[in-house]
């Protein structure tokens, strides 16, 4: 059958038509006329292309992107942690022998005497004798030889916090160090001393060390090893600002030194590397639009966000169109009390302030902690259920006028069933207006969804939507410093809604048979 018509067409083309032959005039079907008008509308075409681009971006882009929707990115960040304090001891410190007293007044007198190079001084009727072991070490004793105290600048500290230093060990050790001896005895035990680096050993085990540096950790649970202290002091004395130290466990840490001239103290900072979420990273090769506040790739989020925004728009529009067409169709076709009831319902729904209602529902879903996925479904249902009255009115109005036309009388005369009459003959005639209103409605729905998500009452994390991506801007710091976070989402949103509106406009013009062009 089809082949036959094709053949006749071919024959027709070969024939020469007479001038008044109808076939000379190219006749376009109404559909083709609409298409022709539409494709001539340049702005509408731009809108169409933008929309196609958006769909590709959202639905194909997500597949092409190397990252997943909720993939988190990390960066290593170097943290300065104050680790230890070090001070080169330039003042005398005092150790007092057991059972003796050496109050601060006497200390002051001692300093005066030592500066003058005197060998004795007296205070409060008591005489004291000075024995200079070195510039940094004096032994103070009574004239009868009893040792009272020790004044020293080099510090003798133990390697293990459990070991105690009493006066005898201290004085013996310091004196030995001052004389550069290699051993000393105290309490009948022999200690070995390395005059080079001040290491004190007892029975071959490390006991302590003697140095002019005093170093203490800032945290109580940290014990500074001898090795570490040596390296740090060496570096400081050489004027270096940082060292890399490998501790017992083989972990390498970098330490930097800071000198505070006011207190004469050095602060040793430990640089620890820690993995943190790569939040608000600037655009780079890996992340073309940077990363967001969670440390996710912005471009990928935008793609998935577009998916969500477009899907929600479509589903909502489908829900409200289906309800609107059914109710509007019934209302318009049957008229009478059915029409009255349905139209009053429409009036009631028309009066319900939709935005506040959705805000209240969103807030209550917030409070109950609804799962984000279910929440999204609720959102679509609510928007759909609140959106149908406009469509019902449109369909009803169209059907009321169509009902009176001749072709409907014809369907009635030929005895076509009611369902068929409504859905095959009336509804198709409403479809042009319906398409236009849906296209424009889609833009509106996407805007509503975005506004809700922006307020934090719509689509929630971990799902992305263009609205909730811009949500970050509520944080004024982001608004000011990270425009790359929210501007792309806003531009995409604007472009999409604009494209839907332009397309709807173009379609309306194209469907309008009165249009001149």
């Amino acid at each position, binding site marked *: 059958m089809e082949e036959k018509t094709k053949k006749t067409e071919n024959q027709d083309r070969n024939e020469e038509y007479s001038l008044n032959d109808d076939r000379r005039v190219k006749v376009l079907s109404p559909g083709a006329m609409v298409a022709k008008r539409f494709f001539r509308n340049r702005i509408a075409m731009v809108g169409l292309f933008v929309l196609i681009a958006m769909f590709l971006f959202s639905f194909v882009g997500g597949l092409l992107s190397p990252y997943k929707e909720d993939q988190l990115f990390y960066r290593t960040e170097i943290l300065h942690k104050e680790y230890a304090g070090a001070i080169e001891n330039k003042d005398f410190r005092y150790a007092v022998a057991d059972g003796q007293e050496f109050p601060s007044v006497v200390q002051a007198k001692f300093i005066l005497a030592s500066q003058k190079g005197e060998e004795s001084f007296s205070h409060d009727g008591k005489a004291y004798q000075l024995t200079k072991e070195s510039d940094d070490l004096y032994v103070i004793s009574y004239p009868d030889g009893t040792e009272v105290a020790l004044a020293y600048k080099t510090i003798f500290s133990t390697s293990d916090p459990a070991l105690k230093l009493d006066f005898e060990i201290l004085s013996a050790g310091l004196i030995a160090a001052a004389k550069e001896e290699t051993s000393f005895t105290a309490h009948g035990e022999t200690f070995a001393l390395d005059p080079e680096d001040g290491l004190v050993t007892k029975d071959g085990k490390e006991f302590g060390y003697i140095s002019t540096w005093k170093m203490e950790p800032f945290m109580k649970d940290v014990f500074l090893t001898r090795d570490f202290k040596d390296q740090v002091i060496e570096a400081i004395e050489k004027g270096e600002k940082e060292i890399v130290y490998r501790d017992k466990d083989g972990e390498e840490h970098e330490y930097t030194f800071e000198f505070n001239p006011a207190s004469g103290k050095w602060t040793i900072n430990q640089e620890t590397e820690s993995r943190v979420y790569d939040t608000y990273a600037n655009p780079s090769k890996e992340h073309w639009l940077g990363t967001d506040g969670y440390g996710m790739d912005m471009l990928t989020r935008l793609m998935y966000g577009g998916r969500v925004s477009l899907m929600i728009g479509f589903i909502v529009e489908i829900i409200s169109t289906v309800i609107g067409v059914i109710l509007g169709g019934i209302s318009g076709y049957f008229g009478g009390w059915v029409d009255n009831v349905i139209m009053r319902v429409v009036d009631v729904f028309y009066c319900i302030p939709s935005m*506040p209602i959705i805000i209240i529902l969103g807030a209550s879903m917030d409070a109950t902690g609804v799962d984000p996925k279910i929440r999204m479904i609720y959102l679509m249902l609510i928007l759909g259920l609140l959106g149908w009255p406009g469509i019902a009115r449109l369909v009803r109005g169209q059907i009321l006028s169509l009902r009176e036309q001749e072709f409907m009388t014809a369907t009635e005369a030929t005895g076509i069933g009611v369902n068929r009459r409504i859905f095959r003959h009336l509804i198709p005639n409403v479809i042009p207006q319906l398409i236009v209103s849906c296209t424009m409605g889609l833009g509106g729905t996407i805007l509503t969804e975005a506004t809700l998500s922006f307020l934090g009452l719509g689509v929630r994390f971990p799902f992305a939507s263009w609205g909730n991506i811009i949500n970050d801007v509520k944080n004024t710091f982001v*608004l000011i410093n990270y425009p790359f976070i929210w501007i792309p989402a806003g531009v995409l949103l604007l472009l999409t809604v604009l494209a839907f509106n332009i397309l709807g406009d173009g379609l309306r013009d194209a469907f309008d048979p009165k249009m001149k062009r």
Partner: protein
Amino acid sequence: MNTLKFIIKRLLISVVILFFVALIIYVLMRSLPASYVETIARQKSMQPGSKSFEEWMAQLNASYGMDRGIIPGFLHWLGQAVRGQFGDSWFYTVPVLQKFEETIWLSFIMGAISMVLELIIAIPLGIVAARKQYSKTDYAISVFALAGISLPTFFFASLLKLVFSVKLGWFDLFGIIGRNYEQLDKWGQFLDKANHLVLPIITLVVVSVGSLMRYTRTNMLEVLNADYIRTARAKGLSERKVIYKHAFRNTLIPLVTIVGGSLPGLFSGALITETLYSIPGIGYTSYTAMVSGDIPFSMFYLSFLAILTLLGNLISDVLYAVVDPRVRIA
């Protein structure tokens, strides 16, 4: 006489619609899973040595009048509301009407200024676009109008804030009064408030001017295609006269209707815009109340909005009949 009858009939229908709208809203608010009462009860029961959550719920429900069933509760609310008693706001802890009076005028002023600006911008541009249909001007105006419609309010507001508040520093980011408001004299205080309203009003105007512009253009086009315009041109009237006397007056018919219909809307407040700029108008106040589950305030605000919508429809229908002599009211 006819008009009066029509108005009365419409008013009666409106009352019925309003009843159902209020019922739906009330049922919705009451059946929401987590309410303000629950939140408070949870907080109170958390305190050391406090009663259990259930006991607090019972006590608070009784004190807030929430122990009635939904339908009796609604009828009680309705009875009170008809007498103009909307109770005390839970969130603001003042009578609902007092809070309403404090906030409504700010919203109204904002709405009125933006509406005047919209009219000033939209009508001339719409007419120009229609006169030069398919010209570059027409395309530019149409795209501008559509862009305004498509612009997400929050995005535009953020952009304005970035440019004018952050980069240029002309306006504050939030609020209606500045830091040194108290030190200013009367005139200074007025200027301070006006300054804080600039960005919100720009936002409102840009976002809503588009639809009015398109409406003007469509109607102007329709009028320009009418027979009497052809007649006017055929008579040899100057183009100015044709456009501004014959065409424009007829375009005014639908415009007056739509503008009249949107007058009540001036009181509804700009929910989103006010929230974005933290302007303490009725919109932002209600937003805060709604988000915290304040039932008396939300009920009041939602019914108020429904009344405004109904009133708007009524006004535009009546105006349509009054302005256009061709329309007869059935």
